[in-house]
């Protein structure tokens, strides 16, 4: 079943169904979870809760990390 997530402002469709948790999404995207913080529908998700955070169709997800800055 098709499902969609809005990740960092861009719609992404998953033809084979959604990854069930935030941890699985990061693994699919090949992003190291240890370097990332997430927001779902405007609420911060602590890294320790990634594995328990279930994903649902139409969620807005922000994946943020540190970069160089002054």
């Amino acid at each position, binding site marked *: 079943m098709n499902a969609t997530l809005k*990740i*960092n*402002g*861009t719609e*992404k469709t998953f033809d084979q169904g959604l990854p069930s948790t935030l941890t699985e999404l990061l693994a699919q*995207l*090949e*992003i*190291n979870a*240890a*370097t*990332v*913080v997430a*927001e779902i529908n405007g609420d*911060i*998700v*602590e*890294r320790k809760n990634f594995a328990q955070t279930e994903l649902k169709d139409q969620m807005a997800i*922000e*994946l*943020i*990390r*540190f*970069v*160089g*800055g*002054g």
Partner: protein
Amino acid sequence: MIILSAKKPQGGKIAGKEFDSRLFVGTGKFASNALMARAIAASGSQMVTVALRRVDIENENDDMLAAIDQTKYQLLPNTSGARDANEAVRLSRLARAASGIAWVKLEVTPDPYYLLPDGQETLKAAEILVKDGFIVLPYINADPILAKKLQDIGCVTVMPLASPIGSNQGIKTKASIEIIIEQATVPVVVDAGLGAPSHAVEAMEMGADAVLVNTAIAAASDPAQMAKAFKMATEAGRIAYETGLAPRSNTANASSPLTGFLRN
């Protein structure tokens, strides 16, 4: 509780934490993480700023934090990109969730052309963040009244700008920074626009407690060498300030004796 050690040329305390260096460095604009790491080491700094951005989900992201040894350096996440108080508070909370660090360099810059800070929104965000337990270091215009308000609500430093971020123009706000230094009971960190080691010396001679430098180091042809130059400049300026400069006068005062010349 802020205690500043006036006797120590190299360091001081912020929010009860002791620093051996009065030079803070930014991590933006370096050509590579390796160059950045070498420059940070050469700077002698113990306070290192970082920013938060969206992960690029299409491309591989390298983890710049891996290049910064957090046992040696205090990480200072900034709120760069925030255009109002709400965005700055949101970024601060994300930074805390990402790093476990409650220190934040608060910057609210609605206009990308000059990147000048919005004092009203900065004060609003600072009030929320201090109440929320953050250690807040606000980036501000060289506005003595605003500096005092931020100090009074519990910010641990004030960080007036020398000139616009990344402009390398040096200290264009000298008279106002002098007033801020005279009135502040928290450390004053001169931030933004310091383009040459001579600018850092000038800020430290004026009595600034620290300086923050990014572009001038990162954009130099050899960032580690320039970082070393800024380290020496920051220490020289501090020693000169603590020693007290000799008085100025409008006429000459001979350095060599005027008596005993061959003429008489």
